[in-house]
């Protein structure tokens, strides 16, 4: 392989990993608060649809981005109402959110299928983007990729080096103790769920505005679910989410690598790779039960009744 090919693969890997990174960061924060939201796929679809729809109608890509984030948050409120207010089963509520999001986005987006949109252009940073190998991957991307770098740094700092991060983790580990020291479990969990929704909506908007500027039904193709597996892969640690997202990005662009090597395999078979990789990763990471127990937030997925 020549150096240009590797440069291009790294570039594509970051681009492809970005939506996964965004959703997984959101889900990580959500799970840190003790809430398991399986609705990422549905929120992403709504974000992608709303982002495309608004950008197409207004002609402004940034309005689309804002709409994606906003709609993702609205969707997460529905989940919050079911899972936090009504204490419904979190797994079922998340599934409901995904099924609802798939249906609603296909319904509302039916008028936008096949419509053209000139997507987000790259902001090529002079000098830095000329760095060998990594220059193109890190400094010749579209603005949402840079935003994902910033959000990654922000989540890292908040979780490991801030008071809100401590509160978040306290609520996820032991909501009873959090209440005892005067924290509002409900408020912290709602904020975490909202953040997860915003990130999923943003990830969806990235797909429909920058990655492949178009809208089609179910265009997220399971990325929301892969992000859930990523959080397990990362053992709930922020740095590993980044690593995992880009590794999955690499698994998704194997066709580029294959072409580079002159191998021809059916595109449908290659498309199974990210899903196979997800299963493989789950097998490798989950088989050690003690490890999962050690790192997963203690109250993950358990409803909390204030009166208890």
């Amino acid at each position, binding site marked *: 392989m020549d150096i240009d090919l590797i440069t291009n693969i790294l570039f594509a890997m970051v681009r492809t990993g970005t939506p996964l990174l965004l959703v997984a960061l959101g889900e990580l924060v959500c799970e840190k608060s003790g809430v398991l939201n399986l609705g990422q796929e549905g929120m992403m679809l709504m974000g992608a649809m709303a982002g495309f729809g608004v950008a197409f109608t207004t002609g402004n890509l940034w309005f689309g981005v804002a709409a994606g984030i906003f709609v993702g948050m609205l969707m997460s409120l529905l989940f919050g109402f079911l899972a936090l207010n*009504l*204490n419904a089963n979190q797994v079922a509520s998340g599934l409901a959110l995904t099924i*609802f999001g798939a249906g609603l986005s296909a319904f509302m987006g039916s008028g936008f299928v096949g419509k053209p949109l000139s997507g987000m252009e790259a902001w090529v940073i002079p000098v830095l983007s000329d760095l060998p190998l990594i220059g193109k991957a890190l400094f010749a991307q579209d603005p949402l990729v840079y935003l994902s770098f910033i959000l990654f740094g922000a989540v890292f700092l908040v979780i490991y080096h801030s008071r809100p991060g401590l509160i978040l983790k306290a609520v996820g580990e032991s909501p009873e103790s959090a209440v005892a020291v005067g924290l509002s479990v409900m408020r912290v969990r709602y904020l975490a769920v909202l953040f997860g929704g915003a990130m999923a909506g943003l990830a969806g908007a990235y797909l429909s505005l920058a990655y492949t500027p178009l809208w089609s039904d179910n265009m997220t193709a399971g990325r929301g679910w892969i992000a859930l597996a990523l959080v397990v892969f990362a053992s709930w640690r922020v740095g590993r989410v980044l690593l995992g997202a880009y590794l999955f990005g690499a698994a998704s662009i194997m066709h580029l690598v294959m072409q580079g090597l002159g191998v021809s395999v059916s595109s449908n078979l290659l498309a199974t790779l990210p899903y196979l990789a997800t299963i493989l990763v789950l097998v490798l990471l989950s088989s050690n039960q003690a490890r999962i127990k050690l790192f997963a937030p203690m109250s993950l997925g358990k409803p909390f009744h204030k009166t208890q």
Partner: protein
Amino acid sequence: MSLSLQRRAQESRLMAYCSPLLALLLTLVTGALLFWVQGREPLQGLYTFFVLPVSDLYGLSELGVKAAPILLCATGLALCYRANVWNIGAEGQLLMGALIGSALALQWLGSESGWALPLVLVTGSLAGMAWAAIPAVLKNHFNTNEILTTIMLNYIALNLLLFAVHGPLKDPGGFNFPESALFSDSTLLPVLMEGYRLHLGALLALLAVVVAWVILSRTFVGFQIRVLGLDSSAAHYAGFREKKLVMMVLLFSGAMAGLAGVSEVTGPIGQLVPTVSPGYGYSAIIVAFLGRLHPVGIFLASLLMALVYMGSEMGQIEMGLPLALGGLFQGVLLFFLLACDFLILYRVRWVRAGRDAAASEA
């Protein structure tokens, strides 16, 4: 006056039955609102969606055609959910049943053997079963989360199906369409009435429901499944072999979904196409919940879900509404169901402001 919520001393059985009906009612009201927002006559919209599709005998037979695969998938899923095994993979198991069943059926294009059809059906069921065995083994031996593995397997199955219809199973004389050749009569399910598409698969589906009901309510295995779902530590202390039960419910569920898939290609479709399923495996999740994981409930819920599929087609033809309206209705229905289930555990009371404090002290 204000609303007050009180936790019930025990779960309300009445509400467990009423909640699906209440959810359906709320979904219909939401649907009417949606038609109104779109500038359509709400009642006419509901009529087109829920009455018109089944207003003649052909419509009713089509209801059976659509309900059969959903019923099969949901029956299997209900058994899984009873055991607290979150199988989301009926869609993939259905597609694998269709794919492998078709691969075999295509070997018998010229055959007139009476064995061809039963063998194709069994092979399809076994394929679905094998596909469900993967998450079962991974859950039992590697502690993987079955929700995520079954979903990944859905996407993998879909891509394998696409690979097959674009490649090895493509009809050589099919003008390059991604479809298989049409199956010969020996591998087609017989129709129940001449001139209608309702086929033997519908009866198989009914049989499956009865079998599932007998297993669940009349056998020791069924008892073990229910205990495992209600309280896994109790099942553990009782000495039930948890892994074996997990494997059994997943295999049963996979076989049902596989049968649904192979019945579709040998039944109403008659060949392998990329759109074998419009999401039957996902709809079956809603059906399982809506039917309260009970065979009779699931039977009724699968008819409703089939009606939603037919209604969205009718809405598209008659009123020019997007086909996706059906998917939206399904999602809304599940949401309302989960919300209404709140009433099983809580009662809502109007409390007068002055007596509020006294009531909460009591």
